[in-house]
């Protein structure tokens, strides 16, 4: 493998206590999800026992910077895809971020997570209703 993307991600992992995110634009009260995360206790606390094991000179173990509600909301609302396609991070209000966390924590009677509309990126994946199951291969 020549592309060390995984290692790069690890190497650039910011301090778990101080998430790195673009500064909030002034005026509209909106921030990126990463900027809102500390407000809602969504940053993973650094434990005393946490050690760094090095592989190829880089920390190999990327344990993640945020807690599960934040990460689930990222996927549910397409925020990572938004950053990829729009070239800038998704921005939302404090109330919408909080509602997005709640949306990623609850399922409807079908077992589906319903995104909070105001937090949903236009780049979030779209799916179609599922048909009958395929038949088996004997």
């Amino acid at each position, binding site marked *: 493998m020549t592309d060390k993307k995984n290692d790069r991600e690890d190497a650039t992992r910011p301090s778990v206590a101080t998430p790195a995110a673009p500064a909030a634009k002034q005026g509209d009260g909106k921030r990126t999800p990463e900027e809102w995360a500390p407000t809602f206790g969504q940053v993973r606390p650094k434990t005393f026992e946490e050690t760094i094991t090095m592989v190829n000179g880089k920390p*190999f*173990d990327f*344990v993640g910077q945020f807690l*599960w509600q934040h990460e*689930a909301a990222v*996927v549910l609302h397409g925020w990572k895809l938004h950053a990829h396609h729009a070239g800038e991070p998704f921005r939302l209000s404090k109330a919408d971020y909080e509602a997005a966390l709640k949306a990623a924590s609850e*399922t409807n009677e079908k077992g*589906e*997570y319903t995104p909070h509309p105001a937090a949903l990126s236009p780049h979030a994946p779209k799916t179609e209703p599922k048909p009958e199951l395929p038949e088996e291969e004997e």
Partner: protein
Amino acid sequence: MPYPGTVTITVQDGGLQLVSGGTNFPFVIGGSSAGTAAQLYLGTDPQAFKAAVGRGPGVDIALDCISAAGGCFFLKTATSVAGVNSVLTATRIGTSTGTMTVSVGGATHDFAIKIRIKKTGTVGVGKFDYSLDRTNTTADAERTFSEEITIPSGGTFVVPDAGFTWTFTPGGGPTFFEVGDVFTGTSTTAHYNTTDLGTAMAGLFIGANGALLTNRKIRKVCWAGNPATAAAAATLAAAIATHMGTLATNKHFARSMMDGGSIDTSSNYLSAFSAVFANSRVADTYSLEDAISPNPFAGFGIPRVSGLFSDFGRAVRAQISENLGRVASGPLDGCVAIANDESKNTLFTEADKTLTFRTDPSGPGFFITNGYLKSSAGSDFLYWDYGVLLDEGTTVVDRELARYRLSKVRTIKIPSQTARPIDPRNAAQIEMAINSALAEVMRGPTVDNHPSHVEEQVFTIDQTNDVFGTRIVRGTYRAVPLPPAENFEVTVGLARSVTV
């Protein structure tokens, strides 16, 4: 002091602190019909384990793990996604008037229900049998049917071990239930959501749960069950990835498997799961199989389940350097049928890194197409075994280095510098201890008869870091895994002579 002088030899054991088979049991998370949510169970006796946690897809996986590894941890979750029972649809041979209904919820597994009327009559007279396994398009001869049962006079039949009740209503007659009539439907079992998982994981390391994990390491984790859709699976996967990080920060260096939404379409899987989720600690499967249940009951012997059952079963049985798709390891035990054969109907590409099933020209049975981890593009952690291998090495490094915590180390003076790095002789001592332990844990023979599970490996101490100033001894562990022979390119032809 001995007299006359002699040489006293003491043979020590346990210095390597090798992990025995009992200390790193597989770990399964899921719902079940009995037990307490957020409680960790250690199952070693199948009967006692079943009595404690009841039934469910995760219980079946755990029972398979007990069979394979001698034990299994099971973390029971709450199940906020309620199970659903469909209506029971009648296909009549004539003009019968009987109908059937099913009680709400409670199914212990996902079921394909087929009830056959075997003797004409009303309640208390007619007879029926039923199957809950495989699919409703599977030939009856391939399914597991109960014995014939008289329709209860009261019309209510509690289906043993299934978690629900059927009600027979005769209708106006004159023919009520007629031999040849068939009632079909489906049931899904309850499932956990992200909050249920979060609650269960939050209690994993405290109280009785934490005590159960003392001196034990979690290596292989299975998030049991079928998410409702691929999109739901992706949301769940994002949460699962953070829980795997939590395990790592608690010194449980592990890899895990989940279902990526196998009951959804492959196109939805690609757009809503594969395109949005990647993590080197998580493998996902898009596969359904008919697998022999380790916990069968009347009408339920070969259920249709997520391929997670066989995927994880193979992962638990595999060596640390063994690719899960290794053909020479044989076909998947107990797998009777698969929903999609990736070799004949290829749904994905290598870049999707999805666990699927295939047939193989080498012989009968079904195999895992390739043992991928759902890592990001370009990641070193392409395969499940690469991850497991490094987890094993990491655990050794972590454990051995811990012995030196707060030990004094010697440093050396560098001319014209204030920094004092570790003394090379001291560094060599630590390196030797750790490399010895690494060599032991990676020692073969492997299933392919190689002497080690790695091509090469080395742990080295950074001899430039100012240990005196930082009080940090920095080390590097590098391992070269054994690559799998995925493809072969052979040229064949006829010739007048061949040179050997």
